[in-house]
């Protein structure tokens, strides 16, 4: 009798080959204590966190902690119910109102995670006879969502507005609605969508809508943290914005906002909204408070970008291949998965945590040491991260030691 997991034997072989050798398992990191937004105890060692997507460092905001504690005491540890049954408290409604105000949109729907928001919205927004045109580098939750949709799914080349235009032009005689799906900042390399160009393409074609997943750009871009559409100045042209509370907002949860008429209809048809329990009241309270801090967080955004510059230029200057443009995601490319694992192990042993990202989850088949910055990283921490990257890379023979002018003797 074949084993249930026999069909994964290739994958298991690959995993064993990649993880061969001594050292920690990059996929089983355990934080035993969290000292701050930027430090934790991992395997008994004080470690700088440089891969948490906690861009603004709001996970310990005193105002949010207090609101969460109050909600916990008042409403308990969980709702034990779906949004459409017993799982909508006044806090959930207040959070949705806060989101409407934050984004200047008429409707907001809160889901239990960003993954579920994408899965729920993308599986239901378009129907039979409609078309979804998605950027090929979109997140797994977008792929899962569109796969469950009845629409025809067409991928366009990553960040290529001309390719999108060409594909829309082929559909010119098709009567269905068309939905373009992009991300504001792409999670792996931190590159931005060419949003102005994509909006121009959208406007050229009839019955065409735009959805942007602002998971990594919310809180990071725009004067008030509304993401790439705010930065580019095209908020009215983005018909649907999906987002998450699990990055800049510093907690967990997902949402979609839109001013499209009757948008609230989705509450009746999104299975990912209906058939799962709602967020606990403490999480809802901290998200609501942190949205205010995101909005007024201009100073945090400035510090975040300053930190991004320090790490980006630091890692480039020591001779590492940094795949991303300047952004709060700084992805270092390793030559292959084995070297990436060895690199990651060297970093963690020296007290630096980053994300290890391997194909097929990465674009271009890259093996990545993916760093993400936090507004409250200190310059000293980041210099230490760069110097640890340098010694590990030298040990692996990836770069040569730079002779520094300041070095004496």
């Amino acid at each position, binding site marked *: 009798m074949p084993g249930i997991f026999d069909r994964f034997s290739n994958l298991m072989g690959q995993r064993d080959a990649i993880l061969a050798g001594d050292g920690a398992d990059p996929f089983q990191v355990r934080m035993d204590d969290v000292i701050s937004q930027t430090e934790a105890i991992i395997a008994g060692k004080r470690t700088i966190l440089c891969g948490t997507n906690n861009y603004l460092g709001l996970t310990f905001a005193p105002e949010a902690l207090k609101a969460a504690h109050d909600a916990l005491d008042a409403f308990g540890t969980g709702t034990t119910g779906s949004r459409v049954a017993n799982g909508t408290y006044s806090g959930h409604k207040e959070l949705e109102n806060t989101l409407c105000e934050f984004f200047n949109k008429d409707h907001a729907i809160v889901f239990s995670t960003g993954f579920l928001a994408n899965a729920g919205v993308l599986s239901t927004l378009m129907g039979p006879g409609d078309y979804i045109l998605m950027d*090929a580098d979109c997140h797994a939750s977008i792929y899962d969502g*569109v*796969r469950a949709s009845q629409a*025809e*799914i*067409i*991928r366009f*080349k990553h960040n290529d507005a001309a390719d999108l235009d*060409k*594909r829309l032009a*082929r559909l010119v005689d098709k009567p269905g609605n068309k939905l373009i799906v992009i991300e504001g900042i792409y999670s792996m390399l931190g590159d931005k969508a060419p949003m102005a160009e994509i909006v121009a393409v959208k406007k050229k074609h009839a019955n065409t809508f735009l959805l942007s997943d602002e998971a990594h750009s919310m809180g990071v871009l725009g004067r008030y943290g509304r993401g790439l559409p705010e930065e580019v100045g095209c908020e009215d042209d983005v018909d649907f914005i999906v987002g998450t509370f699990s990055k800049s907002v510093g907690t967990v949860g997902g949402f979609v906002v839109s001013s499209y008429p009757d948008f609230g209809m989705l509450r009746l048809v999104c299975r990912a909204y209906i058939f799962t329990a709602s967020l606990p009241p403490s999480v809802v309270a901290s998200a609501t408070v942190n949205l205010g801090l995101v909005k007024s967080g201009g100073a945090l955004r400035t510090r975040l970008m300053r930190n991004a510059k320090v790490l980006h230029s630091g890692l480039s200057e020591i001779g590492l291949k940094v795949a991303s443009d300047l952004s709060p995601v700084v992805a270092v490319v390793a030559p292959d998965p084995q070297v990436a694992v060895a690199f990651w192990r060297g970093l963690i042993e020296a007290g630096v945590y980053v994300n290890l990202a391997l*194909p*097929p989850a990465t674009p271009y*088949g890259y093996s990545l040491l993916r760093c993400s910055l936090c507004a409250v990283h200190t310059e000293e921490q980041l210099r230490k991260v760069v110097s640890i990257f340098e010694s590990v890379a030298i040990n692996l023979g990836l770069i040569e030691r730079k002779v520094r002018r300041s070095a004496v003797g």
Partner: protein
Amino acid sequence: MTANGEPSADTFAALHELLGPLNKTGVDLKPETRFSEDLNFDSLVVMEFVATVEDCFDISIPMNILPDITTVKHLALAVEKIVKADRG
């Protein structure tokens, strides 16, 4: 064109040319060659290959039909069907 029809030699020739550089197992490319079993294509290679086929024929191949395309012949038939629908 039906699923049982025979794709043209031109379509095959074009697909063979595109497959050449991706044929790491060195199998003989035939209409019944399977992408996953015979050519060892993983999801990443499939995505790359689909993109080159789309460029070559100037078409969009919807993701929805990919699970049904397991052999070179399936792909040739799908491509011809899309080309015909696009160009009328």
